C-alpha cells in the first residue's frame, strides 16, 4: 500500500519525524543512504543543549527549550520499546570560559535573551571557586562557567539505533543504500531513485541533511544549507572526571571523555586535521588538567548542516503541496520536538506549533 509519507533521509532528524508519524498511525517509508553517506547523526556531540541557542531569535530559544523539556518522556518511551537505555542526563550543563572578559560578554548576551523571554531563562554564573565545588577537577586557568539548568546530554548513537529499531517495530519501512535523485508531483509524489527504481507516496518530508542542497530545489525549496565541519576527539574510558557536560567537553555514559568542538568552513571535506585536534585538546587540558595523561583513542569529523543564520528550516513547499523541508544542525536536541510536535505541523492540526520564523523565505532576496 502506498505510504502516507516518504521521508527522504534516515538520520536522527528523518527517523525522529518518521517515529512521530508512525505513533500517529501514518504509514511511513524512510529512504536512507549508504555506509559512507555524510552523516551528522553518527558524528555529532550528543548534547541536548539549550544555552546559546536563539540569542538573536527568542522563538528558537523557546523551540529548543520545549524540545529539551519533551526529551525525558521521549527517551523513556524509546528505551521502553527497545530495551536500550539512551544514557540521557539533563542535570544542567556548563559553558566554560578561560577568559574573564569572554565570560562577561556571554553573560550580557544571556541577560538580553532572558529579558526577551520575559525572565524565563534559568542560568547561573559560577566563578572559579563556586565552579570548583561543582566540578572539583577543573584547572586553575578556568575563569568560570555559565550553568544552564536545562542542558543535558544523551548517547546519540544509542538514540540512532533505538530509532532505527523502533521505526521498524512500529511498521515503518526503511530502505537503506538508496539515493533519491528526482521527485515529481501530481496525484501524490513519485520519487526516482539512483538505481532506476521509483517510489510513490502521498506526502514527502525532505530531511536529507546536506542532501537537501541538490534535492531541495527540485521540490521547490531554496534549501540554503552548507556543510560546516566539526572535529571531535574521544579518550579511553576513564573514571568519573566531571559531573556535567559542556559545549566543548563531556564524559559519555561509557566512560570516554569526548572533546569538541570546531567550526570550520571547508566545504565537503570531513577529514580531521592535526592542527585543530591539537587546539581542541589543548583547550580541554586547560579545563581539566587530568586529561593531559589520558589516551586519545579516536578522532573524527562530521559536517554540520548549517543554514545562513544557524537556525532550523521548517518549510512547506510553495510549488509542491504536501512536501516539507525539515533541516537543522541540532538534530539531537530537537529530536523530541521533531517526534512529538512536528507531526501536528506536517498535518496542519489545531495543535501545530508556530514555526513561521523558521520559514526559509527569511533568506530570500527581496
Amino acid at each position: 500500500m502506498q505510504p502516507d509519507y516518504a521521508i527522504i533521509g534516515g538520520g536522527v532528524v528523518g527517523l525522529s519525524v518518521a517515529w512521530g508519524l508512525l505513533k500517529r498511525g501514518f504509514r511511513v517509508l524512510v529512504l536512507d543512504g549508504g555506509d559512507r553517506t555524510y552523516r551528522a547523526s553518527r558524528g555529532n556531540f550528543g548534547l541536548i543543549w539549550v544555552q546559546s541557542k536563539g540569542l538573536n531569535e527568542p522563538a528558537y530559544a523557546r523551540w529548543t527549550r520545549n524540545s529539551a523539556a519533551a526529551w525525558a518522556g521521549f527517551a523513556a518511551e524509546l528505551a521502553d520499546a527497545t530495551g536500550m537505555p539512551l544514557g540521557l542526563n539533563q542535570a544542567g550543563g556548563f559553558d566554560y570560559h578561560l577568559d574573564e572578559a569572554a565570560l562577561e560578554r556571554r553573560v550580557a548576551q544571556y541577560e538580553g535573551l532572558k529579558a526577551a523571554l520575559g525572565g524565563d531563562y534559568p542560568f547561573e554564573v559560577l566563578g572559579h571557586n563556586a565552579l570548583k565545588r561543582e566540578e572539583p577537577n577543573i584547572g586553575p586557568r578556568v575563569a568560570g562557567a555559565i550553568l544552564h539548568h536545562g542542558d543535558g546530554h544523551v548517547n546519540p548513537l544509542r538514540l540512532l539505533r533505538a530509532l532505527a529499531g523502533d521505526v521498524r517495530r512500529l511498521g515503518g519501512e526503511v530502505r537503506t543504500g538508496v539515493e533519491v535523485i528526482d521527485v515529481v508531483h501530481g496525484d501524490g509524489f513519485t520519487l526516482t531513485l539512483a538505481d532506476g527504481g521509483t517510489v510513490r507516496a502521498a506526502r514527502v518530508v525532505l530531511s536529507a541533511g546536506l542532501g537537501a542542497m541538490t534535492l531541495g530545489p527540485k521540490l521547490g525549496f531554496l534549501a540554503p544549507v552548507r556543510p560546516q565541519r566539526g572535529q571531535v576527539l574521544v579518550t579511553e574510558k576513564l573514571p568519573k572526571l566531571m559531573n556535567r557536560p559542556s559545549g566543548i567537553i563531556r564524559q559519555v555514559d561509557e566512560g570516554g571523555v569526548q572533546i569538541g568542538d570546531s567550526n570550520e568552513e571547508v566545504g565537503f571535506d570531513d577529514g580531521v586535521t592535526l592542527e585543530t585536534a591539537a587546539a581542541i585538546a589543548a583547550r580541554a587540558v586547560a579545563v581539566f588538567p587530568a586529561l593531559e595523561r589520558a589516551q586519545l583513542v579516536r578522532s573524527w569529523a562530521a559536517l554540520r548542516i548549517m543554514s545562513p543564520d544557524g537556525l532550523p528550516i521548517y518549510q512547506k513547499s510553495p510549488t509542491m503541496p504536501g512536501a516539507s523541508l525539515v533541516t537543522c544542525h541540532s538534530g539531537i536536541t530537537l529530536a523530541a520536538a521533531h517526534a512529538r510536535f512536528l507531526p501536528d505541523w506536517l498535518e496542519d492540526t489545531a495543535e501545530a506549533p508556530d514555526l513561521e520564523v523558521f520559514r526559509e523565505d527569511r533568506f530570500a532576496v527581496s
Partner: protein
Amino acid sequence: MTAADLVIIGAGPAGMAAARTAADAGLSVLLLDEQPRPGGQIYRDVERVAPVRGALLGEDYTAGLPLARGLDGDRITRVPGATVWSIENGTRVAWTAEGRVRQAAGRRLLLATGALERPMPLPGWTLHGVMTAGAGQILLKQSGIVSGNAVLVGAGPLLYLVAAQMARAGSPPRALVETQTPRDLSAAFRHGSGALRGWRLMLKGIGLLAELRRAGVPRHRAARSIAIEGTGRAEAVCFQSGGRRHRVTCDTVYLHHGVVPNTQASRAIGVEHRWNAGQHAFEPVTDADGRTSLRTVFAAGDGAGIGGAKAAELAGRVAALAIARDLGAIDDTALAAATRPLRHALARERAPRAFIDAAYPPFAEALLPADDTIICRCEEVTAGAIRGFARLGCLGPNQAKAFGRVGMGPCQGRSCGLTVSAILARENGRTPEETGYFRIRPPLKPVTLGELAALTAADENEIDRRR
C-alpha cells in the same frame, strides 16, 4: 619539523631495503619504526638474536641480517620506537617516541607497514593462554620462551614453521590442528605451474613436516567445529577430524590462519583499496612501482599485498628507485637498468603465492563466526550483534560501528575490521568491495591528549573567540 626526501614507515624487509636503496641513490631517508630495533616481524631484532638463536630460528630468519646492517650510513636517519599515529596530506607524519611527539614532512612517503596475523575468532579465542602463532613466535625470538603444553590451530606455512621452531627448542606442540582440507590442496594445483616455480619453498615445507614427524607431533587435518574450552583460561582444544571428535588438553593455544596486509596507515591516508579475493583481504591499489592512488605515497611489502619477506625486500627496492627517479636523483636509464633484474626476481618470488593462498585458505568458521563468538575484543561485540545491525539496515561497517561500537576501541578495528565487513557482506548479499571497510582516522595508535596538545600553536582563548 624534520624534513627528508623520503619518509619510510616500517623497518621490516621492505622498509630496510628501500632505505638502503634510496640512500644509495642520494636521497635523505627518515626511517620510522615502532620496534626498538630493526627487522620487522619476520626479522625481529635480528642483529641481537641471530648470534644467539640463529640456528634454531633458521636461515629464513638470519637472511635479515644484511638488511639490518645496511641501515648504517649518513643519509639514513633511524627513529626506533616511533609510534606513527597521524599522517596528513599524504606525506606529513606525526609520531611519539620516548613520550615526545615529533613531526616530519617528506617529499615522498613509503608505507612498509607489513602484515597482521588474520584474527581467528573461534569459540573461546578470548580466553587467557590463547594467542596468535606470531605472538608465540615473538616470545621465542626475543626471549627464547616456549610453552611446553601448546596446541597449534589453523593453516599456513607459518604454523609449520612455528611448530618446527618449538620442536627445535625442545618443546614440540601437543598437536597440530590443521583446518585446510585435501580439496583445498587439489584446488591449489590449478596454480600448479606457480607451485613448481616455487619449488624451493615447497621443499622447505616438506622439510618442516618431516621435522615435525620426527618430533612426534600429531597432525589433525581438515579439522571442523573447533572450540577452545576452559574457564578463564584455555584448558583444551576440541574439534572434529577424521570422522570423530577430539579433545586435546593444553594450557596454551596458538592460532594462525594466514596474514593480511596492515592497511591502517594507507586507509588513514585515504588511498584507494581493492579486495583481493585470493587472499581474502583488502590491499591498497598500487602500480608496478608501488605507487598508490596518491602520487606522493608508495606502499611496498606485505602491507601492499601478501608476498613474503623476499618479495617485500625486492618491492621495497623497486619503490625506492621509482621515488629516486621521481625526485630527480636518478635518470630513466639508470632506473630501467636497476629495476629490470629486481622485477624478474619479484615475479619469481610471487609465482608460488596463488598456490599457497589456495592450499592454505583462511578457516571458514573464523571468517564468518557463530553468533555468540566475540569478534570485537575491545568493545566485546559478537558476530550475532553484527548480524542484528545488518537487519537494522547497516550496509557497511561504519554504520555498524555507530550502532554497536564495533571497532571503536584502542585497536581501531585492526582486529575485527575484516570480520565485520565479511559478515555484513554475507548478510546483505553484497560484495566485500561494496560493503567497504572501517574509515580509519588518526590516532592510528593511542596518543595522550598532553602529547597532542603540545603541538598546538593557537592559544585556547583564540578558539573561544572563534566559537
